[in-house]
């Protein structure tokens, strides 16, 4: 046992085999078998979520957990490169500040409370419905208006096209909300 341990010690090994002691003879088992953490991971192709350049990303994941997010060398836009934000996309998803539960603040409350997702959805639907019922205007001077100006939406430039489409469809064409806006101007 002691002999075994001593044999692992580089100095002893150097003395024994006469090398300079900095090379392979000093590699530990870990060094010898070192592999990138992405080895054996699944790869999913993605696009960077930060700015409008649209760099290609490769998402490496194992057993449902993110391992690494890197540039996609095949992208004709980014050629595998990323900026500091794009290079940090893994931390964006995994940092401890990520929310995983609905936080609720009741009227006049002083602290957050945690509530279940389903309950939150029901409550939000109720609030939207009540506000819409109270404020919906069907006509003005005999012309159709068919809108409510009392409920607003903000956001979209960070979302997917499909998400924006459903937002505009439900909020605009379904509920009659006109106050719909986001970071973009056109």
């Amino acid at each position: 046992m002691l002999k075994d341990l001593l044999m692992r010690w580089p100095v002893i090994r150097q003395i024994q085999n006469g090398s300079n002691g900095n090379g392979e003879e000093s590699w530990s088992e870990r060094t010898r078998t070192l592999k990138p953490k992405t080895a054996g991971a699944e790869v999913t192709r993605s696009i960077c979520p930060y700015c409008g350049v649209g760099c290609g990303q490769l998402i490496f994941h194992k057993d449902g957990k993110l391992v690494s997010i890197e540039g996609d060398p095949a992208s004709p836009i980014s050629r595998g490169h990323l900026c500091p934000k794009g290079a940090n996309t893994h931390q964006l998803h995994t940092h401890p500040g990520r929310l995983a539960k609905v936080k609720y603040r009741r009227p006049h409350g002083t602290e957050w409370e945690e509530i279940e997702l389903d309950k939150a959805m029901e409550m939000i639907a109720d609030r939207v419905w009540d506000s819409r019922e109270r404020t919906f205007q069907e006509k003005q001077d005999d012309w159709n208006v068919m809108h409510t100006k009392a409920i607003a939406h903000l956001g979209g430039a960070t979302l997917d096209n499909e998400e924006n489409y459903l937002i505009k469809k439900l909020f605009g064409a379904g509920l009659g909300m006109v106050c719909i806006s986001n970071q973009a101007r056109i």
Partner: protein
Amino acid sequence: MSASMETTGIQPGEITAFLTDSTLCIGCKACEVACKEWNELEQDGLTLSGFSYDNTMALGHSTWRHVKFVEGTPEPGLGGNAPQQLSWEFSSDVCKHCEVAGCLEACPTGALVRTEFGGVYLQPDICNGCAYCVVSCPFGVVQKNEEDGRAFKCTFCTDRQKDQLQPACAKACPTESIKFGRLDDLRAHARERLETLHARGMHDAQIYDPTDTSVKGIHSMFLIRGEPETYNLPPRPEVPTVYLKEGWRSAAIQGITLIAGVALSFLAARAKRNEVQA
């Protein structure tokens, strides 16, 4: 592995290198972040330095790439709109992976080794935190993490290199200011690039690769404008152990009486690491 992963094609036994071409660097710090992401390094300070856009300030145990910002000051008196008097240079610093490496020479435990790609690798499972390497690095690259007890520095992404992947910093770099490849190829490229820059009138451009000192050249070369000191690069770096020609064999013999003590510390450190790595 997906077909879209570009591989370096570099086999073990071939010597690899970085060439950081500061004439292409835009100071974005993608290299710093890509390095920290891949190597899972912690953030290490949230204070404004007041020194240009450099809030990283130095390489350390949790910072293995560091972009330096050099602001050229306009000539006093010109004032007003004299933009031609301004310059802003950036250069991404990193472990030099010296041909003759002070850290590696000084390491009593064999934690620092030469890899199959010629890089200098600090084996975290062997390091016992003695910090001899810290004082022996002519570039001030290695730093001990006092909380953890061990020393750390750039791994040259040896783990990635083993799978023929380029290091994380070089891969991320948007303008390919950080190049990774075979040492000989990059040395040739650097010479060509220097000629191009000189032809364009950048007569202050030079290659930083101290082959004529005891360091005998580095595997992280730089192309810079102006003097090396401007980028905190020592003009004549020397290896402190240069006089100990026999390297570790002589060190081991001279220090024979210390063996028992060192062995104990080595074993103790190993036990601790096993806990950490579990």
